[in-house]
C-alpha cells in the first residue's frame, strides 16, 4: 500500500501562536508584583517555548502516535525475560480509585490506613511467595531492587566487620546484574556455564574467595533452565560466608512450585511488572521489591510499613538500615495493581500461572523444534531460546531479520541476541495468558519464515514493510545524535 502522509508532525511543528489545550482560572487573589518579590536575575528572561495547540490537536496527535505501537493488548508479545502477560483491567480500575491516587506521602498515617494496609498485606503475600522473612517495597524497578539488595548485603558484611567486595555472576546473567554491582562498588567475576547451560560448579569453586560477598543468579536462568544445583550453590556460598542472591525476573516459572527461601536463597528481587501483571508502560514504571532472609532484614530500607496495636504505622526505628534508596515509599500505584492481581488469583491461581506458563513454553518449543536449532533441549521452564544460526549460515537470514519479519505478521519479536552465549539467539516467552490458537499461529508463522528463508530470503531482508517506517538507521542515530528538536533562533 502506498504510504501517504506517513509523518506525524512533531508537536513543535504543529504549534499555532496563541493556542492552548487548557482553560485555566483567572487569578482570584490580589496580585503581587513578581519583579518586586523575586530578583530579576532569578526570573525567566523569556517565556519557555512550548507547543501551542488546542486540546483537539493534542488528542489527535497522541492518539495517532498510539496507533504506531505494538502492545500486549493488541499483539502477541513473546519477549523473553520480560513476561509480557496480559494486564488485567481490574488492576487498572483499582489503581485509579481516587482514594489511592490522591494520597500524599506525608499525610498523617491515620488518614491513609487503607493504602498502608494494602502495602502491609502485599508485603506478607510476597514474603510467603518467596519463602523469605521480610520484604521491602521501596525499590522502583528490577535493577533498583538489585542495587538495593547488594547494598543490604554490603551493609550486612560491614556490620560483621567484613569488607567483601566481590560478586560472582554467571555468564548468562542480565546486564543489570553486573551494572548494579558496579554502582554499589562491587567487583564482578564471571562464572562459566556448563554445556548444559547451568552454573559450572567447578568454576564456581575455583572463583569463590573469602572476599566473595554474593553470587547473583537467575533461576530459572535466561536460557529458560532451572538450575537443579541451586541448593548446592547455596551451600558452597554459605560455607564461605557468602550470600546467594536470586534475580527474580523469572519468577513466573516457579511461583507456587518452589520457594527461593527453601532453596537457600538469602535475598532476591521481584519484578512486579513481570510476574504480577502490572503493565510495562513503554519501559516503566515497574517496581522491584526485595525479599530477604532474617539475618538481612535489619539492613532493609527504612521506613518499613508495619502493623502495631491494630494500626498501620511507619517503622523508622531501624538503626542498621541502609537508609533510603528512593523518595517516599516506593511505586505505590504499581503495588495496588500487583496486590489486586495476587488477591484475584489466590493460592491456586498463582500455581496455575506457573503451570500454564511452563506448559505454553514447552508446547511452543516443541512446535518450533523441527525448524530452528534449540541449543538446549526441552523441557524448558517458562521460556526457551532458539538459534537462527542455521538460517544465517544457509541463507544469510539473521535473528534480526526474523524479528523484523514477525512484525509484518503482527507479532512483537522475541528478545534477540540475548543471552550472549547463544549465537543468533531468540529468547521466547509466551506467558500463560496466550491462547492455544495464538501459540499455533505463531508456530505456523515461524515455520513459514524458516521456509521463506530458503525460497525467498529477500522477504526477510526487506522486512518490515507494514510499519510506518522501514528499517531504522540506528548507526546514523548514534553517529549524529539528534536527541531534541531545535527551534529556529
Amino acid at each position, binding site marked *: 500500500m502506498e504510504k501517504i502522509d506517513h509523518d506525524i508532525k512533531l508537536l513543535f511543528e504543529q504549534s499555532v501562536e496563541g493556542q*492552548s*489545550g487548557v482553560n*485555566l*482560572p483567572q487569578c482570584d*487573589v490580589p496580585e*503581587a508584583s513578581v519583579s518586586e518579590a*523575586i530578583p530579576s536575575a532569578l526570573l*525567566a528572561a523569556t517565556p519557555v517555548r512550548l507547543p501551542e495547540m488546542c486540546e483537539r490537536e493534542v*488528542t489527535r496527535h497522541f492518539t495517532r*502516535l498510539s496507533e*504506531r505501537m505494538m502492545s500486549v*493488548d*493488541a499483539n502477541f508479545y513473546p519477549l523473553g525475560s520480560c513476561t*509480557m502477560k496480559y*494486564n488485567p483491567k481490574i488492576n487498572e480500575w483499582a489503581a485509579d*480509585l481516587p*482514594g*489511592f*491516587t*490522591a*494520597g500524599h506521602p*506525608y499525610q498523617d498515617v491515620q*488518614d491513609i*490506613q*487503607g493504602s498502608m*494496609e494494602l502495602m502491609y498485606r502485599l508485603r506478607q503475600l510476597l514474603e510467603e511467595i518467596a519463602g523469605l522473612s521480610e520484604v521491602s517495597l521501596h525499590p522502583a*524497578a528490577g535493577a533498583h531492587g538489585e542495587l538495593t539488595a547488594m547494598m543490604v548485603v554490603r551493609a550486612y558484611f560491614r556490620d560483621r566487620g567484613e569488607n567483601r567486595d566481590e560478586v560472582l555472576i554467571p555468564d548468562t546473567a542480565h546486564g543489570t546484574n553486573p*551494572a*548494579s554491582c558496579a*554502582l554499589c562498588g562491587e567487583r*564482578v567475576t564471571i562464572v562459566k556455564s556448563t554445556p548444559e547451560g547451568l552454573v559450572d560448579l567447578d568454576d564456581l569453586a575455583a572463583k569463590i574467595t573469602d572476599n566473595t560477598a554474593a553470587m547473583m543468579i537467575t533461576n530459572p536462568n535466561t536460557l529458560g*533452565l532451572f538450575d537443579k544445583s541451586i541448593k548446592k550453590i547455596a551451600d558452597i556460598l554459605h560455607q564461605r560466608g557468602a550470600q546467594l542472591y536470586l534475580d527474580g525476573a523469572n519468577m513466573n516459572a516457579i511461583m507456587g512450585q518452589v520457594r527461593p527461601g527453601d532453596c537457600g536463597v538469602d535475598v532476591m528481587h521481584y*519484578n512486579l511488572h513481570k510476574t504480577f501483571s502490572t503493565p*510495562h*508502560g513503554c519501559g*516503566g514504571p515497574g517496581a522491584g521489591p526485595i525479599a530477604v532472609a532474617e539475618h538481612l532484614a535489619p539492613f532493609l530500607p527504612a521506613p518499613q510499613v508495619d502493623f502495631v496495636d491494630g494500626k498501620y504505622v511507619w517503622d523508622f526505628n531501624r538503626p542498621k538500615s541502609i537508609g*533510603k*534508596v528512593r*523518595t517516599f*515509599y516506593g*511505586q505505590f*500505584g*504499581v503495588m495496588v495493581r500487583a496486590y489486586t492481581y495476587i488477591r*484475584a*488469583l*489466590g*493460592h491456586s491461581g498463582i500455581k496455575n500461572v506457573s*503451570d500454564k506458563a511452563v506448559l505454553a513454553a*514447552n*508446547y511452543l518449543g516443541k512446535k518450533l523444534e523441527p525448524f530452528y536449532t534449540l541449543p538446549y533441549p526441552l523441557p524448558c521452564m517458562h521460556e526457551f531460546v532458539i538459534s537462527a544460526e542455521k538460517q544465517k549460515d544457509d541463507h544469510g537470514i539473521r535473528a534480526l531479520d526474523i524479528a*523484523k519479519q514477525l512484525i509484518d505478521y503482527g507479532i512483537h519479536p522475541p528478545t534477540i541476541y540475548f543471552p550472549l552465549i547463544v549465537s543468533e539467539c531468540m529468547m521466547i516467552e509466551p506467558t*500463560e*495468558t496466550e491462547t492455544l490458537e495464538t501459540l499455533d499461529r505463531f508456530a505456523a508463522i515461524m515455520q513459514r519464515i524458516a521456509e521463506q528463508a530458503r525460497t525467498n530470503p529477500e522477504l526477510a531482508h526487506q522486512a518490515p514493510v507494514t*510499519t510506518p517506517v522501514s*528499517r*531504522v*538507521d540506528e548507526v546514523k542515530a*548514534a553517529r549524529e545524535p539528534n*536527541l*531534541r528538536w531545535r527551534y529556529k533562533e
Partner: protein
Amino acid sequence: MAYSGISQKQVRHMLDTIGVARIDDLFADIPAELRLGKLLNLPEPMDDLSLQNHLRSLANRNHGTDKLISFLGAGSYDHFIPPVVDALASRSEFVTAYTPYQAEASQGVLQAFYEFQTMICEITGMDVTNASMYEAGSATAEAVLMARDITGRSKVLIGQNVHPEYVQIVRTYLASQPMTIEIIPTPTGTIEPSVLASLIDDQTAAVVIQQPDFFGCLNPVDKIADAIHAAKGLLISVVDPISLGLIAGPGQLGVDIVVGEGQPLGLYQNFGGPYLGFMAAKSAYLRRLPGRLIGMTTDHEGRRAFCLTLQTREQHIRRERATSNICSNEGLMAIRAAIYLAAMGKNGFFQVANLCFQKAHYAASQIVGIEGFELAFKAPFFKEFVVRSKKFPVDKVIHEARQAGLLAGVPLECWYPELGDCLLVAVTEKRTRDEIDALVDVFRKIGG
C-alpha cells in the same frame, strides 16, 4: 481462571504434543526435596465483585486530597491534571507496550519520548536529557555519581535546604563509594555564596542545590554557579518543573546537571509513586548520562524515524562499565508529562506558575498578619513557604486544620529539630481564595 488463555481441555492436547503425562513432569528439573508440594499459604482466589468491594473499601479508608483541601507539598503536589492527560495516557497501546527496542514497531512512543526530551530541554534550558529516571531522589544520587566520573573528584557539597530524603538517598548511594559528603549550612533558608566558597576545594566534584529549595526559597544560583565553577567543579540543581514557567531555568543560571521531580507535570500524588525523575545536562556530558536516549534518524528510504540510541552507555551492552544500572524507567509517566506540557502549552505553563506564585504569596501575606505566626525565612519564594508558630505547637495548627477539612502543611521537626515550631505550606493553582481563606481562618482562630 480468567487470565489464562489455555482451557483445561486444551491442556491434554498440549501435553500430548510435548510428550509428557502431566504438567508436573515439566518441573522435573526442580529437585523433589525443594518442591513445595502444597499450595502457598495465600488467601483463596477472589471473584471480581468481591475483589472490587475489598479494594474499594481499602481506598475508602483513606482521606486524601480527593476529600481534603491540601496545602501539603515537600516534593509531592496537588496540581491540576487536565483530563486529556488521563484520556490519552491510558490508551493501552502505550500502557501495555515494553521498552521500544524494536523501533519499527514503536515509532509512536519513540516520537513521544523525543518530544518529551525536547520539552524537558526547553523548560530547563539545558542541551540534552534522557527519557526519564525513577524520581528526583535517586536521580540526584545518579547525578552525583556522574559528576564524580566527570571530574574524578571525591567530595560533594549538598545544601541543608535540599529535600532531606534526597540527601538521604545520596548518602545511601555513596555509602559504598570512596566519597565524602559535606552539608552546606543554610540557617537563613538559602545558600550563602561566601559560606559555600569557604567549603569548596580542589576535591569538590559538585555542589548540589535545590531551586526552589525544600523550604520553597529561591537561592542565588548564578553566584553559586560562579563559586563552584571557579574551582572547576560542577553544579547540580534539583528543580520543580512548575517553577520554570516563571523562574529562570537552570541553563540560564549556569547549572551543569539538572535533575527534577516530574510529578507536578500531570501525575497523581499516588502516596509517593510512581513519579517521574528527569535529568538534563550540558551537551559535553551527553555520553555520561544514565538511562535511555531517543534519537531522530531516518529509515532506509530516508523518511524521518526514531530509535533508542547511544545504547553503548547502557547496562545491557556495557554491563559493569555502564553509566548506570537503570533499565526500566518511568516511560508511561514521561508520556503523561509530554501530554501535560503539550496541553498546557506556552501560555498555560506560564499561567500555572504565575497562579502558584500569586496564591502562595497571598496565603503567606495573610498568615504573617496574624499574631504568633511569621515566615521562618526572609528569602524570596515561589509556591511554598515555611511558617513559624511562635506561641502554639505546630501540631495544634495541623489538628485544627484537619478538623476543618484542611491539610495545613508538612511539619519539619523530623528532619530539622531546630525547626520544630515550623510548618511547610504549599499553595498550588488549584487552591481557591476561599480555600486559602479557610486555612488563614484556622491560623487566626489559634492566634486570636
